[in-house]
């Protein structure tokens, strides 16, 4: 099931950018069994949200999804805490942070929605993504602007 989603994600990526967020891997069913410290290191960008990138169930979780989308980050791991109460509690203890959403870059806790928004607004996010080896789509937009 997960391989199918990864494949469809790649097919969508090869075409023009979609208006809908591309499907990030959804692994909430497996999350309960995996150690959280391993989980957050499995992917460069890991988010714990309410709902899914295709259907966020909370305004703050949606903000995280939209910000990542704006930067063209469509390959990331997303875990739906609404599907797993143990995960919901576990991630809060793990990062010592009382709320969802939670964003991790390279296994390191970055913050929630407000922090990600701040980073997006002050340019830190582009820089952090660069450190992860991800080129923000906003850099390409800026380049296009200059060409015009």
């Amino acid at each position, binding site marked *: 099931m997960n391989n199918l989603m990864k494949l469809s994600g790649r097919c969508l990526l090869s075409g023009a950018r979609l208006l809908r967020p591309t499907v990030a891997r959804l692994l909430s069913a497996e999350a309960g069994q995996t150690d959280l410290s391993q989980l957050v290191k499995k992917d460069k960008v890991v988010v714990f949200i309410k709902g899914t990138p295709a259907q966020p169930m909370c305004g703050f979780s949606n903000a995280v999804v939209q910000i990542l989308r704006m930067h063209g980050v469509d390959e990331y791991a997303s875990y739906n805490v609404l599907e797993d109460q143990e995960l919901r509690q576990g991630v809060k203890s793990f990062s*010592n942070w009382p709320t969802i959403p939670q964003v991790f870059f390279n296994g390191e806790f970055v*913050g929630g929605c*407000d922090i990600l928004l701040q980073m997006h607004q002050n340019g830190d996010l582009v820089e952090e993504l660069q450190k992860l080896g991800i080129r923000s789509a906003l850099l390409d937009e800026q380049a296009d602007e200059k060409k015009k």
Partner: protein
Amino acid sequence: MQRAMSSHTDGEVRIVQRLKEKFPQATSLKVVDISGGCGAMYEIHIESDEFKGKRTVQQHQLVNQALKDEIQAMHGLRIFTAVPKQ
């Protein structure tokens, strides 16, 4: 929806008190109940030298620790920290 700023909810008052205790050096502190007075969600703005040199997430962690008990009853909160401009 504009609320009269002259009155504060009990929750806001309690949180302001708690933050004043934990951040005695805070130069600016504002707490707003953004759940329409239900105490479910708050927005906190706090400026203090105690945040100097710390990354945003660490600054927010300090506020989280300070409001550990109050947070249990909340649905969510938004934190905006800053170091006072010299």
